């Protein structure tokens, strides 16, 4: 399977994400935000964490209007996989590929620590390697991870089993403790916590490796 990792000015988890994909058996190409096309035969596009464009205007807002995003949208419309982590999740909500918005943490502080998450659904190729209700630990590192959406959207996310991860406790004020959500076709995942920073025991935990592993297997057979 082939992954493309988008790189924006200010991305800082792009190489970590590439390593996690490679360790799961993917070939990886880095794609600069000014490019207008993705490499041929890309199965999954990774949108990495960081502070694209210095978080100016709104987190992810300027990255979401980059030239490469047209190709990302076409890829998703074709049914391709996309994984947005932290700033990448912010980019995905700014593009409208995922619903809702991410605003300043309720406690106003930048939060940087490992957090416990609950895997809410295994009905996605991102989470099929876990068991439903399993507790996993991924690090978070964000200032604007407070997920909000209208009542109809929240009801749809829960009703359609599209909440992939919830925080074990109240980390940042997110509605319904939402940490990560899936698109309607379940092939786009956005989450604030960092599975790529917990994908190798040398990093202090490997709970995130299962996400990349199950995705790599699914993309080969998809």
């Amino acid at each position, binding site marked *: 399977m082939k992954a493309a990792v988008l790189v924006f000015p200010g991305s800082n988890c792009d190489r970590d994400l590439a390593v996690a994909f490679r360790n799961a058996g993917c070939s990886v190409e880095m794609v600069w935000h000014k490019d207008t096309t993705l490499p041929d035969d890309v199965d999954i596009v990774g949108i990495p964490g960081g502070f694209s464009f210095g978080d100016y*205007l*709104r987190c992810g*807002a*300027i990255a979401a*209007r980059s030239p490469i995003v047209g190709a990302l949208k076409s890829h998703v419309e074709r049914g391709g996989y996309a994984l947005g982590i932290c700033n990448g999740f912010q980019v995905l*909500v*700014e593009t409208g590929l995922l*619903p*809702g*918005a991410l*605003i*300043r*943490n*309720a*406690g*106003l502080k930048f939060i940087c620590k490992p957090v416990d998450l609950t895997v809410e659904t295994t009905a996605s190729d991102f989470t099929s390697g876990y068991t439903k209700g399993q507790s996993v630990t991924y690090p978070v590192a964000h200032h604007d991870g*407070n997920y*909000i*959406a209208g009542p109809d959207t929240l009801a749809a996310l829960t009703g359609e089993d599209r909440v992939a991860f919830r925080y074990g406790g109240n980390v940042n*004020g997110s509605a319904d403790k939402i940490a990560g959500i899936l698109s309607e076709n379940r092939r786009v995942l956005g989450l604030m916590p960092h599975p790529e920073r917990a994908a190798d025991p040398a990093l202090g935990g490997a709970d995130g490796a299962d996400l990349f592993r199950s995705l790599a297997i699914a993309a080969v057979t998809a």
Partner: protein
Amino acid sequence: MKARVHIMLKNGVLDPQGEAIRHALGTLGFDGVHGVRQGKVIEIDLASSDAASAEAEVGKMCETLLANTVIESYEVEIL
């Protein structure tokens, strides 16, 4: 021609920064502050000299980039 855009979080969207400011004002002895909302002001210098077309153009800028209409409202002022 210049335009000024005021961007605010929509009513009902919690504003943690506004809340922190409200709390600080209370600590400083400013009584009677019921609420604070923090927004953004963006000033744009435009080539256009026609107010109506400038307003329409800036409106488009707001919808496309300047505001996230999921959570923010905006007002355009032509100066």
